[in-house]
């Protein structure tokens, strides 16, 4: 998220404007600028961004964290299996006797990748389908609405389990597709209703009267005015996707060993957590903090974009 230039002092005539096309008064209060002003003032937003940035950094450069915080040399010794935290190895060891901090740090990558990729994919699908259904109406709308109902009626864990067991040699890419396939319905409904609300607006009629083709109407006039709520819902959804991916790993139908992910670590922990609670605690802590940050951030963004909630 880039920071827009702060509202400069108005009526400052002593200094000549550096760029000539900058407006002389404060920038116009658009919805996004207004929302950003709101978000910027809330400490919880910054806390969430900090956690997400930290987790993002562990996903991008896990070596940095393993070098800084643990004496891990990359070797696993079964003799050290499930040992608790010690100095030099603050998270203890996992079942194979590997340094647990290194494992937990490496586990962040699939979660974040899935969260971002699934949300982007589902957003794309729902924007396209919602635009088509809302704009054209008629049989296109009926067909897409029925399809949405089918996807909506399919329970998440059940549907995902059946699909993933049907294709046993799946990696993160296939899991992303499955999560997109099960996750587009709600956003499509939001997009469709937004498009229906916007498509009869005066500016769309005016554009239509000047001879704009349907594709231009949809992309230039309807889309920019209908897309914001869907993006907000998508942001709220990132945390749920990460949680869902970890749930499937945990149930043993998602990623498979030797992949490293928080869900798989929790899957291992379930047999040993009564005697070795550190196996449960650390991946659970990281997973929960990540999901919590995304959910709180999504909440804040929704509040900022919905003036009724203020």
């Amino acid at each position, binding site marked *: 998220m880039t920071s827009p230039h702060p509202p400069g002092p108005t009526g400052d005539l002593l200094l000549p404007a550096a760029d000539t096309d900058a407006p002389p008064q404060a920038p116009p209060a658009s919805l996004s600028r207004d929302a950003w002003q709101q978000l910027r003032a809330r400490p919880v937003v910054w806390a969430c961004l900090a956690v997400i940035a930290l987790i993002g950094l562990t996903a991008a450069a896990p070596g940095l964290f393993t070098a800084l915080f643990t004496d891990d040399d990359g070797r696993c010794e079964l003799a050290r299996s499930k040992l608790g935290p010690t100095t030099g190895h603050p998270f203890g060891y996992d079942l194979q006797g590997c340094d647990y901090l290194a494992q937990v740090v490496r586990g962040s990558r699939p979660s974040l990748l899935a969260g971002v990729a699934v949300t982007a994919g589902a957003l794309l699908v729902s924007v396209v389908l919602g635009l088509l259904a809302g704009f054209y109406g008629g049989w296109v709308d009926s067909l897409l609405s029925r399809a949405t109902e*089918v996807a909506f009626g399919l329970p998440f864990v059940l549907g995902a389990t059946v699909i993933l067991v*049907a294709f046993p040699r799946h990696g993160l890419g296939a899991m992303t597709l499955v999560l997109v396939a099960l996750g587009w319905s709600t956003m499509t409904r939001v997009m469709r209703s937004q498009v229906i609300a916007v498509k009869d607006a005066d500016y769309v009629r005016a554009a239509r009267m000047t001879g704009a083709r349907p594709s231009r109407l949809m992309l230039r006039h309807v889309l920019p005015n209908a897309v914001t709520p869907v993006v907000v819902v998508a942001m709220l959804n990132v945390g749920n996707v990460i949680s869902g991916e970890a749930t499937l790993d945990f*149930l043993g139908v998602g990623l498979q060993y030797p992949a490293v992910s928080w869900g798989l670590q929790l899957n291992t922990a*379930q047999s040993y957590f009564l005697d070795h609670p550190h196996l*449960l605690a650390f991946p659970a802590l990281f*997973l*929960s903090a990540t*999901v*919590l940050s995304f959910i*709180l951030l999504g909440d804040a963004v929704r509040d900022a974009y919905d003036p009724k909630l203020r």
Partner: protein
Amino acid sequence: MGRFVVRRLLHAIPVLLATTFLIYALVFVLPGDPIQGLAGDRPVPPSVLAELHRRYHLDDPLVVQYAKYLGGLFTGDFGTTFRGQPVGDVIAQRWQVTVRLGLTAWFFEVVLGIALGVWAGLRKGRWADHLILGATTVVIAVPVYIVGYLAQLVLGVRLGWFPVSGGEAGWPAAYVLPGLVLASFGLAYVARLTRASLVENLRADYVRTADAKGLSRLRVVIGHTLRNSLIPVVTFLGVELGSLMAGAIVTEYIFNLPGIGQQVFQSIQLREGPTVVGITTALVLVFVLANLAVDLLYGLLDPRIRHD
């Protein structure tokens, strides 16, 4: 109203057909021969294999298999598992556990969720409100199986208040802990929804009127404000009733409860098409009917909404 019900039910038919076909097709493309899978490493005599394939229609094309399955479904025959047990019996037997678990969880959501929400709403901005808001956010964010493990560890093992897993202790002892865990997400959501709705309605003119004409605080809150505040909560609770049954897979897995979710999970691994599709059909049916009930209830609660 009658036409609305009929239209909604008609809408549900293609959804049910498509969902079951989707699941059936996915089970159908699962790799390997399921009969051979049952026998393990031992070779199955070709004649036995052929006879079993014939009996379970395994050699027919997918569409024909599905049509035969549907035909059976309409006559109340859910098919038989590969062990020869009628799927209907399996569902009936497992269903009790899931329904008990789902209703226990739903009870917690209704009672605790609304109570916490009202408490927070009436104490808006004070420490009780902040505590409930913070706690519910954390509960929503923490995945349900982690909540389950913590509950097992603390309430089950360390404190010994509840049985840790299994269903032998019967209702309610064996179901309180899993019910709370299954309810945790919805409970937090109900509390937040109730609070937000109550806070908004407490500012309404009709509440000020009720206050001004000297009604007791209790009557203003319960008789006037809460009635209107519960509309979105009822919607959520109705949908929740359906999704609790389907969402019980993870909870049943953690607490080793022999419910429908555990059964469907096992059947998927065993590739028992008829069982998986039968249970999915039942779950989707519950989900669709719960949504329909919510839509109808909505009209009763809020007279401004009319179905015609």
